[in-house]
């Protein structure tokens, strides 16, 4: 019997994942990955409740259950990476890093060492013949977060939810009377979702206040509490009231200046040519040619031309932000992608 270790977060998706695998005849072990346990201002970290919920479902299913402690590794590989990126003025995606480093590396290795043949997670994605494919539910598709996973890891991974829509998953969880069937969804990096990146970063960095400059006039409009908190295209939180809204179009981490504009058509808000760094291809390296790409989770797929590591989008896209990922698709197949660098002329 194939032994599968399922990452169980205590949410409905991974709960149903485990249930489906049991029904499909796998020998299933549930694993709670203990990645983060710290309380933050205004947030009681729910890890103990989540762990208990995951275990409740494991008991319901009559499967073995274990806790893998990745707290130190998560802090090093995900949180420190995230903070470093923000310090450099970029906007990182910690969920992508978590999949790359924790779920599909540490968890996989630990599971195999415990005797597993495969792992499974509750991601909305499909794998066919070692190829990562879009989930059936285009609205829930999570391949954007998975593009940095290796082919070797995918060969040992099951995504049982890839064929289902979120409403179907809820319904199936209810039909099975799973304890977590009605539980509210949480974000991948739950603490950021709950308290906001601003309050989170404050725990780790001493932000330097600086000037807010109108890019068109060069005039100083006011002060901000730290350039690190501002990201391209951002409209809210500038505290410069009156008239049309301003948008962040750039920042200088050295001088601490944040540049804003009222011009929705400002060049820096729109990008067409993007050089990718830290490129990762899952299986085959994508040859130059035409593809569809996604510039953020749940953004629609848009046409693009790949040429020597540079993407030329068919249409300019708004707020393509340094540090974020662009993921490349060929039809249903997720080929991989890379990280957006700073726009060349700022």
């Amino acid at each position, binding site marked *: 019997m194939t032994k599968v270790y399922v990452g169980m977060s205590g949410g409905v998706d991974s709960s149903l994942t485990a249930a489906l695998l049991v029904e499909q005849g796998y020998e299933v072990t549930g694993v709670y990955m203990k990645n983060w346990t710290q309380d933050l201002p205004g947030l009681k970290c729910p890890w103990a409740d989540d762990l208990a919920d995951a275990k409740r479902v494991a*008991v319901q299913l*009559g499967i073995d259950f274990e806790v893998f402690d990745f707290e130190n590794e998560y802090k090093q590989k995900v949180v420190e990476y995230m903070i470093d990126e923000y310090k450099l003025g970029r906007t990182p995606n910690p969920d992508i890093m978590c999949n790359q480093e924790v779920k599909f590396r540490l968890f996989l290795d630990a599971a195999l060492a415990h005797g597993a043949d495969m792992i499974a997670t509750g991601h909305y994605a499909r794998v066919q013949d070692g190829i990562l494919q879009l989930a059936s539910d285009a609205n829930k598709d999570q391949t954007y977060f998975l593009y940095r996973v290796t082919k070797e890891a995918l060969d040992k991974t099951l995504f049982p939810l890839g064929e289902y829509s979120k409403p179907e998953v809820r319904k199936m969880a209810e039909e099975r009377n799973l304890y977590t069937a009605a539980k509210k969804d949480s974000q991948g990096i739950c603490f950021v979702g709950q308290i906001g990146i601003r309050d989170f970063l404050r725990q780790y960095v001493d932000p330097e206040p600086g000037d807010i400059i109108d890019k068109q006039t060069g005039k100083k409009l006011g002060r901000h509490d730290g350039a690190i908190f501002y990201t391209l295209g951002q409209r809210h939180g500038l505290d410069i009231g009156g008239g049309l809204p301003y948008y962040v179009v750039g920042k200088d981490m050295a001088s601490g200046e944040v540049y804003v504009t009222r011009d929705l058509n400002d060049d820096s808000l729109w990008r067409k040519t993007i050089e990718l760094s830290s490129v990762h291809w899952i299986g085959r390296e994508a040859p130059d040619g035409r593809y569809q790409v996604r510039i953020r989770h749940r953004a629609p797929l848009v046409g693009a031309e790949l040429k020597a590591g540079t993407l030329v989008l068919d249409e300019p896209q708004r707020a393509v932000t340094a540090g974020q990922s662009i993921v490349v698709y060929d039809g249903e197949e997720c080929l991989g992608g890379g990280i957006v660098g700073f726009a060349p002329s700022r």
Partner: protein
Amino acid sequence: MTVYLDHAAATPMDPEVTKAMLPYFSDAFFNPSSPYAPAVTVRRDYDAAKVRIAAILGAQAGELTMTAGATESVNLAFAAGSGHVVTTVIEHQAVLAAADRSDNTKVAVDAHGRVDPEVIRNALQPDTWLVSVGLANNEIGTVQPLAKIAEVIRQERAKRRDEGNGQPIYLHTDASQGVGQIDINVARLGVDLLTMNAAKIYGPKQVGLLYAERGVNLTPQIVGGGQEQGRRSGTENVAGVIGMAEALARADAARKTETRRLFDLRNSLLSTLEAAFPEMVVSGHPKHRLSGHLHVSFPGIDAERLVFGLETKGVLVATGSACAANKGTRSHVLTAIGLAPDVADGSLRLSLGKSTNADSIAYAADAIIEVVGKEMRRVNR
């Protein structure tokens, strides 16, 4: 069907207790220290409630300090002197932590969790000022030979008189788990200080008291307006104390019949489970044990899985110890009575109460047999 078997952790408020309390949240909301007539009435009701409680304890109302629960009472008791204290290794965390603030000796207990009064005697030092032994253990239900320990204290006092040692020595008991099942008359128990709360006897949470006989000089831990004869400042929790008096009166009146009833129900549950699981380990003293208490262990089984499995069937039970379980650490009580780790980790505490009857016990027994059986098959496959 919901079967609640965790009365040692919390009890639902008796509707009559709620009813007695309600006026003091609204019409009779006055501050008992205010001078006008309606407030004076509230003051009288408050004082009368304390007299009612004191009568059951066989004490004077002036010897009671009302607190916000047993933990506060324990803290107040342990602050009443300085020097060496003696307690046992199986006390509640409140007592252990309070004892650790001074020089202390925690004496061992036997495999049933009972402390030998002679062991207490041997632990006494010339500067020992407090001996604190819980009336009944919250995890395994073992009842301590408090009267015999009180006798040891009396003999120590006589010895000190003969030796010209002027150091007073007092006996404190945390009676929170025993109230309603054991006579808590302080003279018969032989204690100088007694802690109890209302939450375990179908009264409100965050209401407790410390009885301290007149000779004990309490050092207030909360200072301010001088309420409770200066021993515990803060506007009186009138509704809470009224509720505690009502709850205690009811618990005391029902004590003998209820103890007998729970004893029979508990034993029926025990014999059903013993028949189903010959390998089951039962902890606590076979005879000197709270009658509504049952602590059982299933070696090699993860108790938390049993709790979760039972919860889906509507049966609510505790793992070996609620406090210890939340921290993910093994119970100090079970370690102290010598349970092996794989036995301790498979422990359930089943505590019966007013809502328990023959039907609910039968239902719970079936559920436990099913859930434990399922886990045993999983572990052994």
